[in-house]
């Protein structure tokens, strides 16, 4: 379940992972997108950590909300509204529960709605959906997360920037799925799923 501490820890780890892999994410985004996913996400997470440092956040709902606003104001492109919506929906869900599963499911539903997309179209959903399925069946491991990202290689994109290159997107990992992997790794490392 989420607590104020493990959620803050998650976001800090997520920021570190994005920073470490900024160039790699942009590299993944170059052949099938516009090559700025790493920089955009790094700028966004920088804003998140500034906001969390300067604003009063007493509940997990506050933290999700501040995170959402920081991401939507700083990331830009499609990733800003997609990650921002995920965080905003998780904020709404955390009004009534602190359980990780329903909160993350609300995030997933938000991404689907905002992107008008579903899993299987080579987007960040192809990391979110398998990760959440694994949480449901209590089988979430590093390996599950990695396998889901690798599997985006074989999909021809039908949504998002990569859909403009269609078939030519096959063989490339989806950058949004990769950055989402860092998010789920951060949740695990911060102990959100520990009983």
């Amino acid at each position, binding site marked *: 379940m989420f607590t104020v501490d493990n959620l803050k820890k998650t976001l800090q780890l997520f920021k570190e992972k994005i920073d470490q892999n900024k160039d790699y994410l942009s590299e993944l985004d170059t052949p099938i997108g516009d090559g700025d996913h790493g920089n955009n996400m790094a700028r966004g997470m920088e804003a998140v950590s500034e906001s969390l440092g300067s604003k009063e956040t007493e509940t997990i709902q506050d933290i999700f909300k501040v995170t959402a606003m920081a991401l939507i104001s700083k990331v830009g492109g499609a990733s800003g509204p997609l990650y921002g919506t995920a965080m905003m929906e998780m904020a709404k869900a955390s009004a009534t529960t602190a359980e990780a599963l329903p909160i993350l499911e609300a995030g997933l539903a938000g991404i689907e709605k*905002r992107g008008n997309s579903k899993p299987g179209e080579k987007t960040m959903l192809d990391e979110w959906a398998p990760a959440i399925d694994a949480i449901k069946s209590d089988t979430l491991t590093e390996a599950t997360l990695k396998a889901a990202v690798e599997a985006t290689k074989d999909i021809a994109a039908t949504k998002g920037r990569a859909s*403009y290159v269609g078939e030519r997107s096959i063989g490339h990992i989806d950058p949004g799925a990769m950055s989402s992997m860092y998010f789920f790794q951060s949740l695990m490392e911060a102990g959100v799923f520990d009983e």
Partner: protein
Amino acid sequence: MKKIINQAQNVVPEMVQGFVRAHQEKVQQVPETFVLKQKEINKQVALISGGGSGHEPAHAGFIGSGMLQAAVCGQVFTSPTPDQIFEGIKAVDQGQGVVMVVKNYSGDIMNFDMAKDLAEMEEIKVGTVVVDDDIAVEDSTYTQGKRGVAGTVFVHKILGAAARNGASVDELVALGEKVVKNLKTIGVALTGATVPEVGKPGFVLKDDEIEFGVGIHGEPGYKREKIKTSKEMAEELVSKLKVAFQWGKGDKFAILINGLGGTPLMEQYIFYDDAMKLLDAEGVEISFSKVGNYMTSLEMAGLSMTLLKVEDDWVQALNEEVDTVAW
């Protein structure tokens, strides 16, 4: 790149500053944003539009009574972010709600949609009209479906008139959808455009080449050919519009010949005249005409031709006086 700028990354804030200063009797800036709003807003449903910068005078040039109450300026050719749009919505809502006019680009759709969610959480009623008038291509860079281009200005004008005359959010959305269904645009480019921060043109046409169907961000068109006469270009665009509309004799239209930024008005009028001769021969009736730079693409040379199949009260709305910088 040869441009009258200072630092490439500052073009939007510096432009906004200049615009507000030049037109302070009409517009003001919403503090700490790149949102411009009408100075004195009537008690009505507010109309808001916007998108990437680089299409001036769109959208800020259409702020004023009878058109837009606010325009949100994103970075060059880049959608504004939801927080900015949300600030715009809050700044102009008079309690009757707000209608957003959005051009059909994936980024714009997502960002405006998210702003709508934020506004609804604060109990502001928001309606959306999506404009996708470009008949050149389906699905291109930045867009799923058809792109939104110069025809958007007609949507601003007709909805602006209706909003000023007391229409509700739902009525405006319904009217907007009806207008968009009857609105079609197609363009021709003679050169590419250079985004200041990129420093080189998005695409290059040889000295003797033109491209039909290019988008307002330099998205690829449908056909590249050797340069032709104005009359021949008009024949190409009119024939495409004819197929799209399937018009009959006596059908009534409004026409907009829109310069893309680098084409002199002289050439726009020559082209307009050629297009009108062809439309006369087709037996369709033109009830309203506009020629000039309304929705540009930085310094791109070329123009677009918009036709709107009109009803009588739409012509009246197009003719209503407005107090804006650019209509």
